[in-house]
């Protein structure tokens, strides 16, 4: 019996993936988004091979320069190569999470923020939605209170309390993301809970945790995937904002937001590039992700 279920799953998965691909191909907007996103993923993955410099290498003879043959995008106020810092910045966002000086985890800071938020938010949403009663009421009221706090204020307070580092950026992003995800998962759970297969599982005597995580959670994936894609966009947005406010990564690391904040001081003295490139980078990546998510959502609605 379990084997049969598995093969069924595999089949539907295959169909789903080809569907997904067809959707992507048929939507020009999604394709544009995909190309932009893939570009940034590519440069982030292969950053060390795409530049002769390191992001920390200072050239005090050539500070605040415009684009040239040696430095294709110019240099910042300490003579660091902007292209190098830009693509290493993309690496921090999308590919690695620098936990400490020597340890870094695979998966970018923004990705981790969303994943942690998903884990906590989905658990709270499942518990609230499936158990109901006073647990639901309590969880939801607390999340309501959290949602009432302006996001920027949460960031400020969190960073003031725990300081600025990559891990704390992840914590800040996930705390802000949890209420939204929990609400989404809860509403989906309330709907799925009434289905027959849940009744069947209950009759079989499965535990509440099994039902929540094995029966309900996988069936909420559709809306969650689109939501998560938008959320990665938000997370990158948030990372940039935190960095810009001086609440992001500690100084020497190549962080887009703090690059803009530093470069801003030199705009009026004639070197706009140090602020322009990271602004463009973050804008293009966020827009790309949103185009992709929008395109997929629209096309998949059309197919339904």
């Amino acid at each position: 019996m379990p084997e049969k279920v598995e093969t069924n799953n595999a089949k539907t998965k295959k169909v789903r993936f080809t569907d997904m691909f067809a959707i992507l191909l048929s939507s020009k907007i999604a394709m544009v988004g995909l190309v932009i996103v893939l570009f940034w993923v590519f440069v982030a993955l292969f950053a060390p091979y795409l530049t002769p410099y390191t992001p920390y290498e200072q050239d005090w003879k050539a500070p605040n320069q415009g684009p040239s043959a040696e430095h294709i995008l110019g240099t910042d106020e300490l003579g660091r190569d902007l292209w190098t810092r830009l693509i290493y910045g993309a690496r921090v966002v999308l590919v690695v999470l620098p936990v400490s000086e020597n340890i870094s985890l695979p998966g970018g800071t923004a990705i981790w923020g969303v994943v942690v938020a998903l884990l906590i938010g989905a658990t709270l949403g499942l518990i609230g939605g499936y158990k109901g009663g006073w647990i639901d009421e309590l969880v939801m009221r607390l999340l309501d209170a959290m949602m009432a706090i302006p996001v920027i204020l949460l960031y400020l307070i969190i960073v003031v309390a725990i300081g600025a580092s990559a891990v704390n950026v992840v914590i800040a992003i996930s705390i802000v993301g949890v209420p939204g995800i929990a609400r989404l998962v809860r509403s989906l759970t309330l709907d799925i809970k009434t289905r027959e297969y849940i009744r069947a599982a209950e009759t079989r005597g499965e535990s509440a945790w099994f039902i929540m995580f094995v029966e309900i959670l996988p069936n909420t994936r559709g809306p969650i995937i689109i939501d998560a894609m938008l959320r990665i966009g938000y997370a990158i947005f948030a990372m940039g904002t935190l960095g810009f406010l001086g609440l992001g990564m500690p100084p020497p690391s190549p962080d887009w937001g703090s690059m803009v904040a530093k470069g801003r001081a030199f705009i009026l003295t004639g070197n706009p590039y140090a602020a322009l490139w990271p602004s463009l980078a973050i804008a293009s990546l966020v827009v790309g992700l949103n185009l992709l998510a929008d395109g997929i959502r629209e096309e998949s609605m059309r197919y339904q």
Partner: protein
Amino acid sequence: MIVFILRRFFLLLLTMILVSVAVFVIAESSPGNIAKNVLGAFISPEQEAAFIRQNGLDQPMYVRYLHWIAGNDWIAEKKINMPLKRITTEEDFEEWWAVRKDGALIRWKVDGDDLVAIVLTEDGEKTEYIDNERWEAIEDGKQEFWGIDRQNHAVRWVKGETETMFVFVMGKGWMESSGGPKDYIPLKKGFVRGDPGISFRTGRPVNKSLWTRLRNSVVLAGTAFVIVMPLALLLGLIAGLQEGSVRDRFLSVGGMMFSVVPEFATGIFLTLIFSVWLGWLPGAAVLGTSAPWEKPMMLILPVLTLTLIELGYILRITRASMVEVMKSPYIRTAFLKGLPYKKVVFKHAVKNALIAPITVIMLHVNWLLGGIVIVEVVFGYPGLGAYLLESALYKDFNALEAGAMIMVLVAVGTQLVADIIYTFLNPRIRYA
């Protein structure tokens, strides 16, 4: 209906309390840092301890929270046995004085072993005299006195025993001096009585700068709002009416792009275009002491940045709502009974299509507040957002907490208003 509003109001109150506790606990969980920020990184542990005690930061958290919320002048009044009064001087400083039986204001300083009283008469004259009768004997033959010092603390002096203290000197910051008392109660009226305390950064009452900053922010946000609303609603309706057309694609994709790009990036792009390349507008909002409306040129770029960000968001919601309404049966009925297109759109569709965006916009205030903070920082605009950031980075609790509470009040208050408006517009969700 009234029950519903009361319920929402109660929830608002609950949220405020929760948030205030959270903000307070998180912000004040590491009081050591404020001393280092204020006095420099190289202070000795004794100096740090003296500063923390002087500002009442050595009290347990719940005591500090209560004092911050409800004030502590009533505690001090009991210790001193005199009523206390807060006055505002001509230089706009707030001073606490004790009120003598004859109505004159009085405070004290210690000069060697002598207690010196300073009396302020109604015409602003200050006179000093030696006031040693007030010393009260305690055990070990020592003498103590509870009074008001010159830095707005209720303090306990012990004769012959003084400690290091820190005094805020205008223009110089916090300076060390001797002759300090044993115990301190930093006097404040408490947040709910309209006194959020003294800013460590400026040495002035938070109230002073907060309201100017808030006013500047309100001008900024208000101007942006007045421009965005009609524009976004109009464009959204146009896009929604022509769903799928080139114009619609252009508006909704364009709107999306503007609304998802971080505010600081938009701000940088606009600065580069309008102030560096075209040279039309100033790139930073340098207001000095003047009000924003006195220098409207400084407002243009910040307002434009906010407008672009909010425009896309509201436009998309309006569009979606309009599309939905146009597909509804009653619109089809209106068309089928032969009403002209214009009449259907303006009389039947628009009114219903606007319900969703107007309430959603109210709920969007949280995001708008974030946008304002960034825009203020990008352009150096002296508003509440920039003030909050500066206070947060400096760990200037009193300022941070006051600013945070105002922000939360605005956010939660608009949500309450949105809820109430929504129940009027859409009776189906009433009493929910």
